[in-house]
Every structure is written in C-alpha cells, then in structure tokens.
C-alpha cells in the first residue's frame, strides 16, 4: 500500500510527461494542460496523505525500490525517503506546482507547442520529487541533474530564438560546474563513510565513524556547497538565473523562483549533520550568502525588465537563506524557503499576468497605471510585495526577521549587511509596483486599448498564492514555532529564539528599514513621477549596476574566450603538429629509402665489387678477428 502510494507520488508526473509527449497533440491544448495539472494534483494528494501520516507518527518512511549501482565497497539502491523535510518540500513543490500548471493552461494557450510545455513541466516535477524524496545522494543527483535538464529545455522553450538558447545553454553549463563540485563531494563522502544513504550517513556521523579526517569532511562540505551555489544561484555562479528569465513566465515562477533554485538549500539542510562538522565552510556559506544578497539586491535596484527585477530579487533572497544556513539555523532557512515560494511564485505569476495583458511587453518603462485595469493582479502582487519587503504581518516579515535575528546573534556585520539587502529589497520591489501599477500608462495606444484583467485560470492561482503569502508566516510564528517542532527530529537541538526585547527591537529596525525603502521608492516614482532613463543614458555607479557589475563580460573575457582561443590553437596548431610528428616517421623512412636507392645504381661492376668486398669482410671477420 505504502509502496504503491509512493509510486503514485513519484510516477504520476512521469506518466503525465509520457502521455503528453506521445499523445499531447491529440489531447489538444487545453486537454494536455488539464492532463499535466491532474498528474501533479495526484502527486499533491499522495503527498498530503503521507504528510498527515508522518506528522502524526513522527516516523520517516523509507522504501527500497530496487538496486541501482553496485560499487566496490557499497551499493546504491533506488530508495525513497519520506521524512519531515522531504514531505515539507514536496508539499510546496507539488502544491505550487499544481497551481502553476493550472495557471499555464491559460497562459500558454496560444503557443503551438503547449503539449510540449506541459510535458517538460511534468518532467520537471518528476525530477524535483526525485531530488527531494531520494534516500541517498545519488538519487538526489538524478533529480538534481534532471531538474537542470528541464530548466534547460524550458528556458530554451522558444528555441527559434538563439539568444534564448544561449541562456538555456549557459544555465545548464553553469549548473554543471556546480554539479562537478557536488559529484566530488559525493566521492569524498563515499570514500569516507562507504555509504551515500542519508540515514546511514547520519548514523555514522553521530556514532563518530569516519569523522576523524575533519579536513576531508570540510573539503566535502565545500564541494557540496559549490554544487548548491550552482543550483541556487549564489556568487560566483549566479549569472545564469537572470538570463533564465528567457523562459515562459510560469517556468520562471516554478523553477527559477519557488522550487528548483531552493534545491541547494534543501541539500545543505538534508546534510546538516555533515556541515555541522565543518564550521569554516559554514562561515564561507554565510559570507557568500550575504554578499550574494547584497550584490543581487544592488543590481535589482536599477533593472527595468520586470522579470529581471524579480530574478535578482530571487538571487538576493536565496542569499539570505544561505546566510541562515551558514549560521546553522536550518529551520529558519527552510521557513524562508517556504514563504519565499509563496510570495515569489505569486509575484512571477502576477508579472506574467501583466506581460500577458501587454502582449509580451516586459519593460517597466512602458507600463504604468495598470491597477485600474487589472485589480486582482494588482492586489495579489501588492500583498506579495508587502510580504517580500518584510511588512508586518505578512509571511515574509516572520521568516526574514528570523534570519536577521539569527544573524544578529551570530555576527553583527552579517546582520548589518543582511539588513541593508532587505532595505534595498523593499525599495526595488515597490519601485516595480509603482512603475507598473501607478501613474499613467506609458505603452502604445493599441496596448492601452487591449488592457484587460486576466481570466480566472490565471487569477485563481494568484489569489491562492497571495493568501498564502499573507498568512504563510503562521506556520512558524514566534512562540508557536510549529515548523521548528515539526523539523526537530532532523536537527540536533537548535533553540528557537525567544521573544525578548532584542527580538522586538530588531523587528522594529527591520520594519523601519523596509518603510524607509518604500518611502524612497514612493518619493521617486510617485511624488516625482520619475521614469528610469534609457539604457544608454545611465552613468557612473548606476551604469555599473545596470550592467550587473560587468560580471558576464568578465566571465566572457576571463574564462570563455581563453577556452575558445585554446580550442582554436589546439585545433589549428597542436593537432597539426602531432599529426606531423607521425607523418615525420614516414618522411624519415622515405628519406632513408631515397638514400638506399642511390646504392642500386645498376652498375654491375659496382655490385660485384660490393659483393666481393662483403665476402672478404666476412672472411676477414671469421678468420682473423674472432
């Protein structure tokens, strides 16, 4: 019973994928969308059942499906582990996934390849479930690479545009850089502990087996973090995520905001017992996280593409989550992952609704005043914006506050930097809101004519997500701490922060900071009615930010170009050189033959002379030398 339910949970999206691939055309555009949605809903229902069960029994479900790879010293099974953490993740992966599928039915209705879109989305959910529910590192790695593949396919969904294909390729390759780190981490863990199974690993570490070589464990943790930073878009591997906005907006919402990019946080949380042994690496994680949060927020300040702003905001929020991980507050990071999934999915879907209404326009300079035309989109996005800015009592307030509180107790510098990042967040998010929904409409007359609120299939998911973004903080309110208790079996005794004066003071500071950010945005874009300048007019720091610190250009010049140059040099010179060495043997043989040919001059007298001379030499040797 349990096994078949697990199979339903795992395989429903896969079946959806297969049927959409092979029969999608027959189902029609709506049909394939409904099928895809139902597949994910089935998974969601199975997840809810397991979630209830585990929540009451407090016991993880571990199911062995079949043996997969046998290694010399250990074997790797195809196992599924449903514990508190994976079920929590599955809840919002399948839940938000189902909502986004529903949304896509309407959003992608006019595309010629709707069935392909849904098959890829289903495949993504399937791999995401594998990633989350896998019971060992290698099953997780299947999902890990699988979601990377789906991300590649979906970013490049409109494959006729080679720029989109470039973005897709870039995402895949940057992820693979991280994946190499992940693999090396797996190797070290396998070498040290002779197992890749999470439960066995935890037992081994708690029992102190294989933990003698702390340096090697630290290396493993660092390598795993490199993997996480690839998938979760941290410095220095984050540049693919903003480019990934080339994909359809539901994809950005599902993959590049709510689920896939949180895989790195999931992995580190999953292996928290390992990271606890490597305090130096945790420090690196915290520092990388906070700097990512800052840098991405700074870039987000000046972006004009509505999806790019959200993309940088995602990178920035992920940075904050890594800050929490680095400080050892795993449940806080998980809390923020969940609330972030709610409000960021809502924001992306909202932006999709706006883009849909404007027939593909993404530049905020050509928007404005949309709140009258699109009230539902406006209100839901406003709630989510308040949530991400950390305004009481929306979900983001609680989770972000927890992170900052942890940072304050851990390291004041980190707290200051994190707070600056969240002030910037409040500013650029309200900048987005003001530019999009307030003021006068700046687009073409034709667009203005067609402005309309999106249909129910789009607004219903928005409303659901907005409600969650508003009240989602309830799962871990200070004092109640349901999430902390729920996750308690996974972490060894991490105390929840008490609601003391410091906590209230920090909440106050955070709220004031957010309000300052909003205020600046208000004064700039509402009072002074500023509109961002054209790209070629920006100067100074603004220009640096608008060009994303020139990081893409630097990577291009420092890494990609030299590799290309090396490739060309190898192709044109080294290959030729090596080939010539081989031909050199032939040439030498040829030369020797030419010399030998001269002996064969056809002069019989010479031949006879050589013959006699040779004979005499032999005789001389045989009789006189020996």
């Amino acid at each position, binding site marked *: 019973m349990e096994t078949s339910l697990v199979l339903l949970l795992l395989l429903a999206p896969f079946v959806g994928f297969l049927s959409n691939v092979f029969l999608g055309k027959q189902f029609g555009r709506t049909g394939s969308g409904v099928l895809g949605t139902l597949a994910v809903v089935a998974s969601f229902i199975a997840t809810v059942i397991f979630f209830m069960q585990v929540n009451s029994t407090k016991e993880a479900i571990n199911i062995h499906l079949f043996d*997969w790879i*046998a290694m010399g010293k250990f074997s790797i099974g195809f196992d599924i582990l449903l514990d508190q953490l994976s079920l929590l993740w599955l809840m919002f992966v399948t839940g938000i996934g189902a909502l986004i599928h529903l949304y896509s039915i309407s959003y992608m209705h006019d595309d010629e390849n709707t069935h392909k879109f849904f098959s890829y989305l289903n495949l993504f959910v399937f791999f995401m479930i594998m990633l989350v529910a896998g019971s060992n590192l290698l099953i997780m790695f299947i999902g890990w690479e699988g979601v990377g593949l789906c991300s590649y396919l979906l970013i490049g969904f409109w*494959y*006729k545009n080679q720029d989109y294909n470039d973005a897709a390729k870039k995402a895949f*390759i940057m992820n693979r850089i991280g994946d190499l780190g992940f693999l090396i981490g797996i190797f070290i863990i396998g070498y040290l502990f002779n197992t890749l199974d999470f439960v066995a690993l935890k037992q081994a570490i708690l029992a102190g087996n294989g933990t003698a070589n702390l340096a090697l464990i630290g290396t493993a943790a660092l390598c795993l973090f490199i993997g996480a930073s690839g998938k979760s878009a941290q410095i220095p591997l984050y540049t693919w995520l903003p480019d990934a906005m080339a994909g359809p907006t539901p994809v950005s919402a599902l993959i590049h905001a709510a689920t896939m990019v949180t895989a790195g946080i999931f992995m580190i949380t999953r292996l928290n017992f390992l990271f606890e042994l490597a305090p130096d690496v945790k420090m690196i994680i915290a520092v990388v996280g906070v700097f990512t949060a800052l840098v991405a927020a700074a870039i987000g300040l000046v972006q004009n593409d509505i999806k790019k702003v959200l993309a940088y905001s995602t990178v920035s929020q992920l940075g904050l989550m890594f800050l929490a991980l680095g400080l050892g507050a795993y449940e806080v990071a998980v809390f923020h992952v969940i609330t972030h999934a709610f409000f960021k999915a809502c924001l992306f879907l909202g932006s999709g609704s706006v883009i849909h209404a404007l027939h593909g326009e993404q530049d905020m300079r050509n928007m404005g005043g949309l709140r009258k035309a699109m009230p539902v989109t406006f209100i839901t996005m406003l709630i989510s914006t308040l949530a991400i800015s950390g305004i009481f009592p929306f979900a983001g307030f609680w989770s972000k506050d927890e992170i900052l509180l942890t940072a304050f107790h851990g390291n004041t510098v980190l707290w200051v930097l994190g707070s600056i990042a969240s002030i910037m967040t409040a500013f650029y998010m309200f900048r987005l809101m003001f530019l999009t929904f307030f003021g006068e409409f700046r687009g073409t007359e034709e667009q203005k004519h067609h402005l309309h609120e999106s249909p129910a299939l789009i607004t219903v998911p928005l409303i659901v997500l907005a409600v969650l973004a508003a009240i989602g903080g309830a799962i871990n309110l200070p004092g109640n701490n349901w999430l902390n208790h729920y996750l308690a079996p996974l972490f060894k005794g991490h105390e929840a922060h008490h609601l003391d004066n410091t906590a209230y003071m920090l909440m106050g500071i955070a709220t004031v900071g957010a309000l300052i950010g909003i205020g600046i945005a208000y004064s700039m874009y509402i009072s002074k009615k500023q509109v961002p300048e054209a790209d070629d007019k920006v100067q100074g720091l603004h220009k640096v930010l608008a060009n994303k610190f020139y990081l893409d250009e630097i990577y291009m010049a420092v890494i990609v170009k030299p590799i290309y140059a090396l490739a060309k040099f*190898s192709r044109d010179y080294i290959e030729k050189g090596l080939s010539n060495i081989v*031909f050199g043997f032939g040439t030498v043989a040829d030369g020797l033959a030419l010399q030998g040919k001269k002996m064969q001059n056809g002069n019989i007298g010479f031949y006879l002379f050589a013959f006699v001379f040779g004979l005499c030499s032999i005789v001389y040797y045989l009789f006189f030398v020996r």
Partner: protein
Amino acid sequence: MDVTLLLILLFIGAVATYFSGNAIASKVALFFSVAALGVSLALLNQFSQGTDISFSAQWIKNPNVLFALKADGLSIAMVLLTTALTPLIVLSGFGNNFNNAKNFYALVLFMAFAMIGTFLASDGFVYYIFWELSLIPIYFIALIWGNGDAEARKKAVIKFFIYTFAGSLFMLAAFIYLYQKAGTFKWDVLVGLDLSATEQFWIFLAFFLAYAIKIPLIPFHTWQANVYQKAPTIGTMLLSGIMLKMGLYSVLRWQLPLAPNAAKELQYIIIGLALAGVVYGSIVALKQKDLKKLLAYSSLAHVGLIAAGCYAMNMDGLRGAVLQMIAHGFVIVGLFFAAEVIYRRYETRTISEMGGIRQQTPKFASMFMILVLASVALPGTFNFVGEFTVLYSLSTENMVFAVIGGTTIILGAFYMLRMFQHAMLGETNAKMFADVTVSEGIVFVAIIGFLLFFGLYPKPIIELITPSIQEILVHVK
C-alpha cells in the same frame, strides 16, 4: 553449443552476403547479424546457467598454438556489445545506396567476425590474428566507400592502417618473447609467468603502444578524427562503437594481468595521459566545424576517461570502464547515425550549414537530444552509471584525477549543447528536412531504449562482468 558457433555463423554470413548479390545484400547481412545476436543471447543464457561455452583445440603443433576461445562474463559482455550493435549498424545503412553493396556488407560482417574473435580469444597467437584481421575490412570500407576527396582519404586511411599496424607489431614481439619463456600462448599460462621488473616494463610498453594507438590515447590519436570524418558512417560506427573497445578490452584482458607491476609503476603517468586526453579532446571538440569530427574528438575524451578507469586498477575502475565501454559504444553509434541522418537530407556535415531542424522534425530532434544528454552522462542514462563509477574509482586513487576527469561533465555539456544548438535549434531552415524513416527510427529507438533501461537497471550487466573482473584483479594484485 559453444562460442565457435557464433564465429562460424558470422563468417558464413559474410560469405553468403558476398554471394547474395547487390540487391539483397543488406537484408542478408541484417538477417545474419540478427541471427548472431540471437545466438549470442542464447549463449548468454547458457552461460548464466553455468554451462561452459568455451572452446579449445590444438591448432598448430609447432609453434604450440591452441585455437582457444574463452567465454567469461567480460568477453560475453563485449561480444554482446558487438552482436547488438552490428544489426543496428547494418540497419543504419538501409538509407544509403552503396556501390557493390555485397562487398560492403560482407566486409561489415567479416569485421564483426574478427572483432568477436578478438574478444573471445584466450590464446595470444589466435588473439593477435583476430586483432590484425579486424583491421583489414575497415581499411577497405574506409578507403573504397568513404567520402570526400579521394587523395586525402587515401592518405588518412593508409596512415591509420600503417599506424595501428606498426603499433601492433610491438605487441607481436612481446608475444613472441612471452612464448619463448612459456612455450605456449595460452592466457592462463602467460599471466602466471614470473617476469622480472625489466621484462614487465618492456612488455608493458610494447602492449601499450599497440593499445594506445588503437584506443586512442593522446598523443597517438592523430589518425582518429580524419578517418572518422572520411570513412562512411557505418565504418565510423564500427570503429568508434566497437573497435576502440578492442583496445580497451585488451588492456584489461592482456596488458594488466601480464605486466601488473609495470602497470602500477607507470600508473600515474598513464592515467595522466588519459585524463589529458579527456580535457584536450573536449577542448578541441569545442571549435570543430565538422559534425563528425566533433564527435570524433568527443569520443577521444570519453575513451580517455575509460582508459583512466582501466589503469586505476581497482574494482570500481575496471567495472566502470567496462560499463562505460558498452554505454559509449551505443551512444556514439547513435550520435554518428544522427549525423548521417542529417547528411542524407542536407548533404553537409558542417554544423554552421545546419540549424532549424527541430522545427521540421521534432521527433528526430528529441531523439538526438536524448543521445546528446546520454553522451554528457545525464543521470538516468547508462553513461552516467559508467562515468560515475569510473570517476569514483579515480577519486579513490587521487582526488585530483577525479577533478580533472570530472571536467568532462562541464566541457562535454559545453561542446555538445553548443553543437546541438547550432545544428538543430534556431530559425527554421529553408531546406526541407524529411521525417525519420522507419529503419532510422528503429535504430534510434533501440539505442535509446537500451541506454535508458540499463541506466536505471544496470544490475544484470554489473552481475555479468563482476566475476571475470575479479579474476583479472587477482592477477593484477
């Protein structure tokens, strides 16, 4: 029933194809290759039930040569690779019209015959004969039915022939030396010889030269790209899918057990060379304009990793190498076939002249994509199982090896996706691209099905090869 049946069947097949006439030659060849696959599966069945399917008989009294064919798990796995790929390779020729088709397909079957002999032979002399015999058909296939300028082709093919032949002569010398010591060419006796360190060193080097050229390892690879490009696609498939594996298989079967101490001494140098091939092959592949050449360099990178696994000389390395040999055999045949399918329609192999194919044939694009992904070892494909095992074995030897070898997952994705993007994606091409035919579809589906099934369930293959690898390791240790 023993393994000679397989050899006889393929030999008769080659003869029958030759006499069948040009019109039906391809079908006769397909029939015999499928029959060979059936026989080899039946043999596998017998073997797994514990029946001895080896064969041994005195062939020549002086020198003392046995016609000995030994079938253990490793040989059977390689034989199955050959017999499974041969029908696909023959089938992939259905869309081409070869002049003198009877000669062509007879040579293909003859080559399968010789390669199976190489995989089975357990007498050094017989092994050497089959090893050299397999060179002859591919020489003619590439020379006569190849493409491009005839003079350039002749130059490349003759270079290939002489190069590999010269390398093999050193191996022959080593065998003769061993015969002087042992009085027989039998594998079991030869690996039991007690050789001094110097003897092992020279024997190792002699074998190494033969295998390094065949595999090929850098810097002995210069024949490869040109021959792959100039040979007809079927020839390229035979070369890359099976013949390279002869070299790798021979490393496991002959070189390591014969000279284990020398292998251990030179291990780091050779693994270094193999891994240099991984990085170098990937980088050179990045800037190739010709699709077949790009695949040739990708093959160089992949076999480099397999070779590194072989020379890691531990359980995981050897096992991973064998798994990866099989996986790479399938995927590279599929990829070259995709190149051929494009060539049949566009008459070009230059990547920049393609593009926009996906719009016209989504089916072909999907299948090509899956093959590309298998080639970059996406988890879930068989290639991942092999690559992971090999990389893990390297990491247990030295972490640096695993990191250098691991760059293949980055660079591999880089050049393969770049190729795919420019060949398949983008704006619709003005030229028509007809959908894949039934025979083309069968080849793709068979290969993809194999790669995906064993990617998720590699256990049968692992269990088949493990005992024989353990036996080899006993001689190596």
